[in-house]
């Protein structure tokens, strides 16, 4: 079991409300990712769930039991920290054994569990080394091993891959996803990297300024963002926003078009502009196009795109792929092109 329910949870530091009243239901066995920009409250909420931060008001239920005032150790959760937080004076073996020793588990069982976790995480050869003698990836595996042996009802990951280099991050991302599949335990994963969020999550909660803007599957957030913030945060490169003249107070103020939804034409299109910087990634190309009246727009093209700096091009996007946002940034669903707004440069 590993369901976690947050009911009207808040957190304040003095007069500053870091987490505003918030409800969230995390299902048993689910991999949920908290994503958002720095300072949005995602790590604070994770620490509140862990019991490392007090909850100002509201309740946190773990497996339908009120855990709001429980000390961290009694919540049955395990946490993996960004800085690994290994005990530097202990060997890998003792690091992994530490939570079991605290729980006064039989030494023979501790040994069995260590061997099993080490085998699972490819750490068997390093069991007698100190953390200082390991690479970043190995240290992170030790931290995960220390979490696994406790057989917690949920794992909490606080930006665990931030300190790793790019290639190692991709590997560890896969390893954590595989671990989730094999353990089938609830995982809450905090990151500011939306690629990590999209690739790993069953569901994503997008945080902004202490509130959850939207919770949903990666594709839901990508295809049906509830507002301009979520639309801009999910997707890489980020969505292009083009300001338009609304025809009424609740009409479209901004259009949102993802770089991959543009079609480049040489003859005519809704927008015309001049190609600026070109980024060739091999499999795809990102063009930064200076569009008259709309600023710089990012366009995704094929890997073998032959356009050059300064070329004049025209851009079009299918109506159903263009998103509309009102003056508050809230998504206006199912509008067709030109409905509720005028685009002066079109």
């Amino acid at each position, binding site marked *: 079991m590993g369901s976690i329910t947050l009911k009207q949870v808040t957190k304040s530091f003095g007069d500053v409300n870091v987490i505003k009243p918030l409800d969230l239901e995390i299902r048993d066995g689910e991999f949920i990712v908290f994503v958002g920009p720095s300072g949005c409250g995602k790590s604070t909420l994770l620490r509140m769930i862990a019991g490392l931060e007090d909850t100002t008001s509201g309740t946190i239920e773990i497996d339908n039991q009120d855990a709001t005032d429980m000390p961290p150790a009694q919540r049955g959760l395990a946490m993996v920290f960004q800085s690994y*937080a*290994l005990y530097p004076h202990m060997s890998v073996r003792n690091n992994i054994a530490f939570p079991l020793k605290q729980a006064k588990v039989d030494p023979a069982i501790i040994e069995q569990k260590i061997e099993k976790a080490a085998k699972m995480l490819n750490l068997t050869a390093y069991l007698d080394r100190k953390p200082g003698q390991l690479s970043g990836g190995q240290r992170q595996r030790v931290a995960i091993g220390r979490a696994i042996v406790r057989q917690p009802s949920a794992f909490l990951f606080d930006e665990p891959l931030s300190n790793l280099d790019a290639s190692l991050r991709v590997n560890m991302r896969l390893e954590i996803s595989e671990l989730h599949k094999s353990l089938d335990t609830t995982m809450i994963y905090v990151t500011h990297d939306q690629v990590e969020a999209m690739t790993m999550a069953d569901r994503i909660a997008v945080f902004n300024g202490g509130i959850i803007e939207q919770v949903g599957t990666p594709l839901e957030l990508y295809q049906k963002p509830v507002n301009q913030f979520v639309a801009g945060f999910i997707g890489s490169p980020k969505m292009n926003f083009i300001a338009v003249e609304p025809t009424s107070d609740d009409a479209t103020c901004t259009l949102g078009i993802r770089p991959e939804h543009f079609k480049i034409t040489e003859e005519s299109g809704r927008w015309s502009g001049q190609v600026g910087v070109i980024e060739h990634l091999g499999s795809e190309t990102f063009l930064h196009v200076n569009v008259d009246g709309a600023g710089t727009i990012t366009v995704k093209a094929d890997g073998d795109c032959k356009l050059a700096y300064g070329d004049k091009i025209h851009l079009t996007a299918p109506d159903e792929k263009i998103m509309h946002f009102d003056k508050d940034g809230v998504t206006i669903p199912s509008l067709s092109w030109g409905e509720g707004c005028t685009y002066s440069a079109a």
Partner: protein
Amino acid sequence: MAIKDTKKSKLIYTLAAWSVSGMIFFPILWTIITSFKTESEAISASPSLFMFDWTLENYAEVLSRSPYFDHFMNSVVISLGASLLGLLIAIPAAWSMAFVQTKRTKNLLMWMLSTKMLPPVGVLIPIYLLFRDFGLLDTRIGLVIVMTLINLPIMVWMLYTYFREIPNEILEAARMDGAGIKQEIFQVLLPIALPGIASTLLLNVILAWNEAFWTLILTAANAAPLTAFIASYSSPEGLFYAKLSAASVMAVVPILILGWFSQKQLVRGLSFGAVK
């Protein structure tokens, strides 16, 4: 040119360093040399640095005249006792200040340190009266208490600085792993902070060993440490320089040896936290 300049400046720096070291060490060297002179050579108007009749009679007389080992044991008990008792109080204090900070933690630390700026003579009368009323005058336990109180601010400050260097996440990980406060401190914090704790202990042993103001005032015979033993050679009958020097050498040699062997630890300890 650049290499020449570097060599020249290196030579100047080396000479300057040796000169300063020589100036600092000279009084100690002079004391050591005087301890091997006769009393008449020690007060001679034209003292010789090495060309004199070397003698051990001062040491023999000092050892026969005063119970050196009693004073030595008093020094050991007082300095070690005060340092260990101080650690016992300073570790939890520094832990709470480093890891459970409040708005007033910094003020409290500054206030603790400011007590070190108070001249000891300012609290002489109340402490003397308290010691008299509680029967602590000329007792080892009394000296241990006063030395602990004197050095506690420095101990808390030093430990606080070490503890601040330890990432909070490690202690949080221990909490998540089921450790209580006792396990968190004894199994995680203390082993990690061991170098810092060792240098705090060493420095405080040295400070307590060398402390003379309170030891001279609060002791007479039974609990008198080596500082009182040295002072006893400045008597109403006059100063006996050679014997005073012999007594001084015997008093400082144990702590010099300790300092020599632990200098690496002390330097590391004192500069801990200065550069990240």
